[in-house]
């Protein structure tokens, strides 16, 4: 069974440090939500409040419209995964997964059946008898996932579950977690500082900074329509263009504009509204090149822009440093911000 969660005006203070400042959130049943933000933004604190590992100073937390603010973790019925796996080092993988079930005094054969099913699900049938120290990081985290799911929780909390793993393992585990989450239709909240992780995994992203929510929305919304410069800057790369240069180049009327490097077009032929620029740097990035260009307009008007050029175009165009090119900033891709 999946549940919805509601966080209502929650604040948390640690010895004069404000970790959360009046945060409210609604999470639908079955939804995969990512709390994304730089370290110290309060995302882990929020997760711990939802888990009941810490208590908020103000505000309430509701599970299926029941106020659980003062309930201990065990009575909220969720599963949790930590960055450090937190597997019991002295127990086998099997006993780790069975740990919560033994607390519930289930019959041995029922436990066995359920644990077997979980090991099958995480595709680690052969590792049951092994100790955590005999498993790789990725395997340990899968066991931790199985343990989190063993008690048939109503929702799942993931605290940076992938940040301790190697790049390759991380990507395969991303898929694994998403598959299992969709299979079970389990409400899931994941904390991460990795934007790629959030973009690829989440149904909805909640971007946090300095103890408040900056923006919430689907990955597309967050990426394409950041509501403020922080979100625009934190997720993906972006060129900011300040007010004077906007006016100088006739780009827009707003206070501050921004455009993502891959939205800028680069060519050797002059088009209407394109700007003359010189290539300053070319950085090889694998499937694209990041080219730094300098648009000049008189003495004070120099504008540095980053442009991402896809691999195929790089092959055919063969840009060189020092070369004069033309950049086009499509008006529909320009993002405008009111505040600087």
């Amino acid at each position: 069974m999946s549940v919805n969660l509601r966080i209502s005006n929650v604040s948390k203070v640690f010895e004069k440090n404000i970790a959360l400042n009046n945060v409210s959130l609604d999470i639908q049943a079955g939804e995969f939500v990512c709390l994304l933000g730089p370290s110290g933004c309060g995302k882990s604190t929020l997760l711990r409040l939802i888990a009941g590992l810490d208590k908020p100073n103000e505000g309430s937390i509701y599970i299926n419209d029941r106020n659980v603010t003062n309930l201990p973790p065990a009575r909220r019925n969720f599963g949790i995964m930590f960055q450090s796996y937190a597997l019991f080092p002295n127990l086998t993988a099997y006993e780790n997964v069975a740990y919560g079930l033994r607390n519930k005094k289930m019959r041995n054969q029922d436990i066995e059946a359920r644990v077997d099913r979980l090991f099958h699900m995480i595709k680690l049938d052969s590792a049951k008898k092994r100790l955590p120290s005999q498993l790789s990081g990725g395997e340990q985290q899968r066991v931790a996932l199985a343990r989190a799911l063993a008690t048939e929780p109503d929702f799942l909390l993931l605290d940076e579950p992938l940040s301790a793993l190697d790049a390759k393992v991380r990507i395969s585990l991303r898929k694994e977690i998403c598959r299992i989450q969709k299979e079970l239709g389990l409400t899931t909240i994941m904390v991460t500082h990795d934007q790629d992780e959030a973009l690829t995994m989440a149904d909805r992203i909640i971007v946090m900074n300095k103890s408040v929510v900056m923006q919430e929305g689907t990955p597309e919304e967050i990426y394409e329509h950041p509501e403020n410069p922080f979100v625009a800057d934190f997720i993906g790369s972006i060129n900011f263009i300040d007010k004077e240069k906007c006016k100088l180049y006739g780009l827009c009327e707003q206070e501050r504009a921004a455009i993502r490097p891959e939205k800028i077009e680069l060519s050797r032929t002059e088009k209407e509204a394109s700007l003359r620029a010189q290539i300053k740097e070319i950085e090889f990035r694998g499937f694209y090149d990041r080219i730094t260009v300098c648009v000049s307009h008189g003495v004070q008007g120099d504008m540095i822009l980053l442009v991402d050029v896809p691999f195929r175009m790089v092959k055919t165009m063969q840009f060189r440093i020092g070369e004069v090119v033309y950049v086009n900033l499509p008006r529909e891709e320009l993002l405008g911000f009111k505040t600087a």
Partner: protein
Amino acid sequence: MEKLKQKIMRCTKEDIVRAIAIYAVVAFLLVFLVCPLCTLFVKAFQNKDGAFVGFAQFIKYFQSKSLIQSISHTFFVAIMSTIISVTLAFFFSYALSRKNVPCKGFFQYIGMIPIFAPTMLLGIALIYLFGNKGIFTALGLKVALYGKVGIIIAESIYCFPVATTILMVAFSAADNRLYEAADTMGTSTLRKMLTITIPNVKYGLISALFVAFTYSFTDFGAPSVVGGNYNVLATDVYKQVVGQQNFNMGAVVGIILLFPAVLSFVVDRITNQKQSAAINSKSVPYQIKPDKKSDALATAFCICITLVMVIFFAVALFASLIKLWPYNLTFTISNYDLTKIASGSGFTAFKNSILISLITAVLGTIVTFVGAYMIEKNQKFKTSRRIAYFLSITPLAIPGTVIGLSFIMFFNASQFNIPFMDGYALQNPFHGMYGTIWILILANMIHFYSVPFSTATTSLKRLDKEFETVSESLAVPFYRTLGKVTLPLCLPAICEMWVYFFVNSLVTVSAVVFLASPTAPIASVIIVSMEGAGQTAPAVAMCMLLLFINLFVRLVYEAIRGRSNKKK
């Protein structure tokens, strides 16, 4: 070309310094650790006339009823005091590291006090409490003190600090995430204890058990005071060697004493390695959650433990300050008049003890640090370094009684017969040390070698390995880096080593009881003989003096450390 020549010259000079240092350390340990032990082994297989008799001595030993009895006695008291002291230390360190107990530092220091006093003090305090004219006895609480009960109580208190120290370290290494994971699964407190806490401190617990066992198995001080007719191995050796001058039988008992110590040493080595593997960098330190009931219980327990300690030492202090227990309770400080103690040798003994402790602390710190440095920060002399390392940690496995015994045999011999080469004999160049304070200094240096050595090694390991590489690349000789960088950075560790040597040398009795002579008396041995002669009050006064000096040294050390910590 000229420069190259200079470079070679300098390199070799440095190498010579290194070589001298490492060989000197190895030689020191070979001569004063290995040779005496070999003498002991040889003696065990010889008869009084020095003829090889194989296992005859051992067979004779195991046929003697009273000696067999003392083995079973020793095991019994050692096992009992191990169980009691480690159980108490377990709850004490659990309370201090996992519960909200106020004034933790205070409790911890009080719990450590027995380290700073000679074990005889515990025995004497017991006599004042539970002896024939003891306070509790007078109140109607009659305990058959002399014998196993007395020894077990005294040893339990004696082993308590070391077990606590080991367990505090074990408890400090916990991953809070494990407890949180367990909490989310609704785990009971008991189950958390059984599946997380105890497995987590398992190795510390094993280590504490073995160390406590060895301590109580080999201690001499407490049984000599409250043992009565209950004979144990450590007092047996003393009787055999000092009483009956039967060195060969003493050697046999010494070898028997070695067994549990060596076993405990091996277990400790193995568990140490496993313990360090149990925590990783991703672990989150344990966070104490307030819980009124269990916090109050923990505080109450800590208060009980400290109360016992305080009662022991308060009674000892009181007894040292009155005229004649229990008949004349008028206040006096005459017991502290060292010139009157032990027919005038009290003052010399006290002076000697301080002198020996100071010299041991200085020389011991230098030798162990140089040894550790040469082993840790050196690429050459692989074999010598390995031998030096092994020899440096070996003393941990040798009970003080055995060190004293082997020293007496080694230094007492005026010449050594070389085995299988009859007629050839080697003059003993160290015979002259016999009967001087130098043999005591050497015995203490060897006896307490391993712990400061480990302290030095740990602090050196913590330093960046690149320091040496950088200075080498800058062509700075290693001794300059040592003086300018390594030594200042290791200064806290060096102070700690110095204090360890000093404190232990001042109160030890097990090794030196064989070695102190009338020409070079020392305080701890004088205490044993005074107590034996019924001069309990001056004996306890002497104990208190040693305790005060040690506490003073420790407090000065803490003050210095506190100040240098603040600077950082």
